[in-house]
């Protein structure tokens, strides 16, 4: 077990090129919990990736003939992962099997599928590039409401720069894949540097950063005084029309004040990223590692409890892939099974997926190293790794394989499980909506059903997945 000093020092050593300052923080993340004083908040990390995740690729290779027959027919069954090997590419999670659940059989046909899915996989509805298609807050934002934090939520992305869902800038801030509410897209940070600059701007250590921060504060202070003054002279609904706006500015200022109070702690966690994670030409693999470091620092410092991370998207040009580091790999071509630079598409998938698992391992290992309450921060954490569009490149949404890493305080019966739920259209089938409803229900949101319904499914498809609830 580590304390935070150990964590920071180990992180520094473990990171190699990445470094974090080794100063003992004054506040723990648990103390930052607003929603649940006395108990640490739950943390949620949604890692989604493009191009589909083949359901067969997450099946333990050691299933017996009977289990394999069920698997092949998409019939429901379950095995204990302790008695099975993980697929090769999931090797980095071998040591975390006690926390690992592979959930198969969830469908998401109420989502936009195919090449791109926008907010669909997080919102469980058909979203596209039009803001009007954003029906409600995505599940990560709903969970963030249950565990408030100064920043509420952060989103990081390896943006698509091509395909039908291109963002203009790989390194900037652009519309992300989460949504704050109806027609309200969230904004994501495209590169680790801009994420650090924005998330940790309250403790910026450059002169430009400090000036920018001061100016932002100044404008908010001015706007708050201005609008509050205006609202004071109004009555009834007219007062609300301005007052709500003024209060919202005040809310942001209040969050800023909280962040300021945390300055000493936050300052300790500013990821000091090595040049290779700041370089404009950084590889995708390095960008992903850099994002994970920002994500970890944001969680551990208590700035946020929820993070969404677009690990990749179909329109992202991949670089840094093991063994073909300098090659720019078009993931659409990979989706179509092409051979690139002599490497088979399946092998490319294998290498990128393996790297993704090292990212998950990095998060789990690090959080297990941070003491919180009677355990570690990981005890209060859930990590989801899943495809943004379903089962394959040209997907239909019949399957969304989920790799779930869950700590011990998650109120769900998870860990050591490989579960294949009833297939789409069969009795007992479960959708993304059921899965998200489960997460929301056990964490304090009693919603009857989160997500749009699948018009092609017959019968009641609402509610949580009882089999998972303790």
């Amino acid at each position: 077990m580590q304390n935070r000093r150990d964590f920071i020092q180990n992180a520094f050593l473990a990171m190699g090129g990445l470094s974090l300052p080794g100063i003992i923080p004054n506040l723990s993340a648990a103390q930052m919990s607003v929603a649940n004083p006395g108990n640490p908040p739950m943390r949620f990390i949604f890692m989604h990736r493009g191009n589909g995740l083949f359901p067969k690729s997450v099946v333990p290779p050691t299933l017996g003939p009977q289990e394999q027959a069920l698997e092949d027919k998409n019939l429901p069954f379950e095995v204990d992962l302790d008695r099975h090997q993980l697929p090769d590419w999931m090797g980095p999670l071998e040591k975390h099997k006690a926390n690992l659940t592979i959930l198969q059989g969830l469908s998401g046909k109420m989502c936009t599928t195919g090449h791109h899915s926008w907010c669909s996989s997080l919102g469980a509805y058909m979203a596209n590039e039009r803001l009007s298609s954003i029906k409600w807050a995505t599940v990560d934002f709903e969970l963030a409401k249950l565990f408030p934090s100064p920043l509420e939520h952060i989103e990081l992305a390896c943006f698509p720069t091509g395909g039908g869902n291109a963002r203009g800038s790989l390194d900037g801030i652009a519309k992300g894949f989460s949504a704050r509410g109806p027609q309200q897209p969230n904004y994501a940070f495209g590169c680790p540097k801009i994420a650090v600059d924005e998330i940790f701007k309250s403790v910026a250590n450059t002169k430009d950063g400090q000036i920018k921060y001061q100016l932002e504060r100044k404008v908010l202070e001015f706007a708050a005084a201005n609008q509050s003054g205006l609202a004071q002279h109004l009555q009834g609904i007219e007062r609300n029309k301005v007052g709500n706006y003024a209060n919202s500015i005040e809310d942001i200022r209040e969050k800023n004040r909280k962040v300021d109070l945390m300055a000493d702690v936050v300052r300790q966690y500013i990821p000091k990223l090595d040049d290779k994670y700041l370089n404009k030409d950084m590889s995708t693999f390095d960008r992903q590692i850099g994002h994970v470091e920002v994500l970890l620092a944001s969680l551990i410092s208590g700035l946020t409890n929820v993070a969404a991370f677009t690990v990749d998207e179909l329109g992202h040009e991949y670089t840094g892939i093991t063994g073909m580091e300098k090659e720019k790999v078009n993931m659409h071509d990979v989706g179509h099974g092409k051979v690139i630079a002599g490497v088979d598409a399946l092998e490319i998938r294998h290498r990128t997926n393996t790297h993704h698992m090292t990212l998950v391992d990095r998060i789990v290992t690090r959080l297990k190293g941070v003491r919180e309450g009677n355990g570690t921060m990981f005890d209060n954490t859930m990590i989801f790794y899943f495809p943004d569009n379903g089962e394959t490149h040209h997907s239909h949404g019949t399957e969304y394989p989920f790799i779930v890493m869950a700590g011990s305080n998650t109120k769900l019966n998870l860990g050591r499980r490989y579960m294949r739920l009833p297939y789409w259209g069969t009795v007992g089938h479960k959708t993304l909506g059921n899965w998200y409803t489960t997460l929301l229900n056990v964490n304090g949101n009693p919603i009857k059903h989160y997500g749009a319904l699948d018009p092609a499914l017959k019968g009641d498809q609402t509610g949580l997945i009882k089999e998972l609830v303790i």
Partner: protein
Amino acid sequence: MRKRSPINRVVRILLKLGFETSPVGGQGDYLDFRNCEFSPYDGLITITCQSVLTIIALASVVLPAAAGPGTTMVLPKEAGNLLETYCYDCHDDTTQKGDIRLDNLSELSLTARLDLMNRMQEKVYFEEMPPKKKKTQPTDEERKRLLAWISEDLHANNASKLEDKLRYPGYGNAIDHGKLFSGAIKDAPYTPARRWLVSPQIFEQRVLDVFKLEGKDRTQPMYGVTNPFVQPDTSGVRDYDTNLLDGGSLLVMMTNAEWISTKQIRPARVKAGEIQATDFPDPKDKWSPKETPAVFESIILKKSVPTDKEMTDAIETQFDRVLRRKPTDVELKKYLDLTRSTIAIGGNTEGLQKMLEAVLLESEFLYRLEFGAGSADLSGRKMLSPREGAYSISYALGDRGPDAALINAAQSGKLVSKEDYKREVERLLQDKTYYSGQIDPSVSGMHLTSHVTSHPKIVRFFREFFGYPNATKVFKDTERGGGIYRNPDRGTLASPGFMVDEADRVVDWLLQKDQNLFENLLTTDEFFVYHDKTDEEGAKIIKEWREVYEALKNTDWRNDAQGVLDKNIDFIKARSSMRPLDATRPGELKNFMLYFQESFGQGRTPFTTVPWAHGYTFHHAPFYGLPSTPDIGRYGSWKSTQFDPKVGNGKFWDYPVKQPFKIANRKGILSHPAWLIAHSKNTQNDPVTRGRWVREKLLAGRVPDIPITVDAVIPENHEKTLRSRLEVKTQEPECMKCHQFMNPLGLPFEIFDDFGRYRIEEFLEYPEKVVGKTADQRLNVYQTLPVNAHGALDSTGDPKLDGDVTDALDMIAKLAKSVRARQSIIRYAFRFYMGRNEMLSDSKTLIDADKAYVGSGGSFKAVIVSLLTSDSFIYRK
């Protein structure tokens, strides 16, 4: 014998003795229940009052200990009597219908009592209680007095919800229709002084105004600007003055303000050498205004701290661009202080930008201000200031601010009377260019551009009223849609998008005629389908195609397309509609000839866009009950010579080049597939929503909100039609309380399915009911049951129209003749142009608008002129 609560029995006895009950502090012959002491031992109740001390013996009554805080409620004698007469029969301790008990109000906790009182207030106000079937009904005066008592208690506790509710769209019909149009109301109309949140469309225009863009530049998409508002998307008027800014709006506006201000100063920063002209942080966002306002530029270029005069000029310029006015002295001082300090912290450029952002964050940027000015008249009303009036007129007719002539009128004292308003409104209605634009740019996408018209906002009223644009939000199972229904996807609103645009075309076409508009909207049998070219363009294409077909039909094009092409290349190229056909594309000639043979050759006219055209997306004609056009795969691409007769059935649509054209079994917008889909569920019809629409939109009626305890799911039964299942579910008296207002009006639409297809048989879409496959083997064919579309019309106010209807077409024909329906549309138009629900005092405005419509032979423009020159529009209080 009924059992009543002891306290209540005491109250009743006292009331009968002529006492009134009151909280402490009451005057006169009141009983102060605060000091009541109830003795449980001897049946005596001792009541200490301010003015009297009374001991009343109540034999054999066992009374409870003192009640809670609710005992301080006022229950005047008269109110008690009214409750006794009209309510207790069903809502006392014995009956408690609907689990509601009103005889123990004083025993409830304050929270419980206020909750119940709010429900009572609503039921009494909307005359939903006592139930209509009860013979004894309170008089208007009694209802008024009961309401006054309930409201008084709620207001004393600052807990009344009704007034707030009445401002919202769902309560628009709360005002009694008969009273509104009776002519008996003589109150002077006005609109409360207010801020009115701008619509998303007005917001977009305001952003363009910040950059002073004109002409084509106004179509420039503002890449980094996000609409900060969400308007409701249900049928009915959406842009109400009750919409508020919230935290989400602020977060979006902070991002918007940063983007806008960054763009504002960009040209000056390039000039100052701070950034390169080619330097764009986001390669997808390369737009820049041509110049930065001079007063901003001089500050950015200046090497020293700007003077107060320079900063003042900059502040005034930003106020003009964002808020369209000068700052007040107080505002100027505040902004000057801010600018000084931000420049001191961040230097000229960044300091200036923060001032620009601060103005953009003013809530006024997002509101329309309508307070009135000058002295009040005898009714306490003030006329809109000329400037306010100019903006109100312009935002009523479009989304842009006033044009130069209107601003000039306002500035030169020519916007101070009704005549002035009339002159300007009529002028702008005649203006074909100032507001011209697409009806709804969000419909535009791949292969579809929203229809362009001179006054898109007028069409928007009918879009909101009918609600058909919501078709794009109902996702359908493609297989059930015959395999041709395409849900909205990346870059396209697909099938429903096309149908919404085609409904827009119908509305706009009838608006251009502007005669008997409401009746025509409800009953027209003429529609636009696939009309992607003008009548003239279409006729030219068909003429040329026919010439080519006639000239070449007897050649050996089938086996020697290249030879035929070579021999006739000049003849073909002289006909531009043959696409850029050259001698290298024999496959396309063959495609054309096959296409012609299957149309001209069989006496039909082909659709004027060929199915092998790139991105061909016309598949939805069957939802109108029309034959399809050939499938894409039948001819292949323009290079293809692989004709496949198995793709499609060969019985293609005889395309009407001149549109609109008549379609059988349709009558107006309510039979348009876009409307029917918009008011359907994912997998089935929605007679309840359709019925509710008719009740609320055409009969000015109300349907009570669905109780939260209601399980609103229609049960499955594989042997019955949807109608039968709905009727079984809603036949219980509790359900019929609401469904009586909807089912008879919604079930006539069962002659259409949830894709808008006309039918006389209903599919039983269950696996065990499959009886075969369609010819192409792609889709299931199911057992059917006959459609029963009978319904009933009521509350039209005309006995000749009320009564049974055979189906939707019959019902629509009757509604189109209904005065109530006409006036109901007028009410919605009022809400659209005033941004609020009507009040009784708006009676004259509504009657005048109705008269204008009738007097003009059904002109909606006459309605607009009437509304925009009404006191309701012009006066504020």
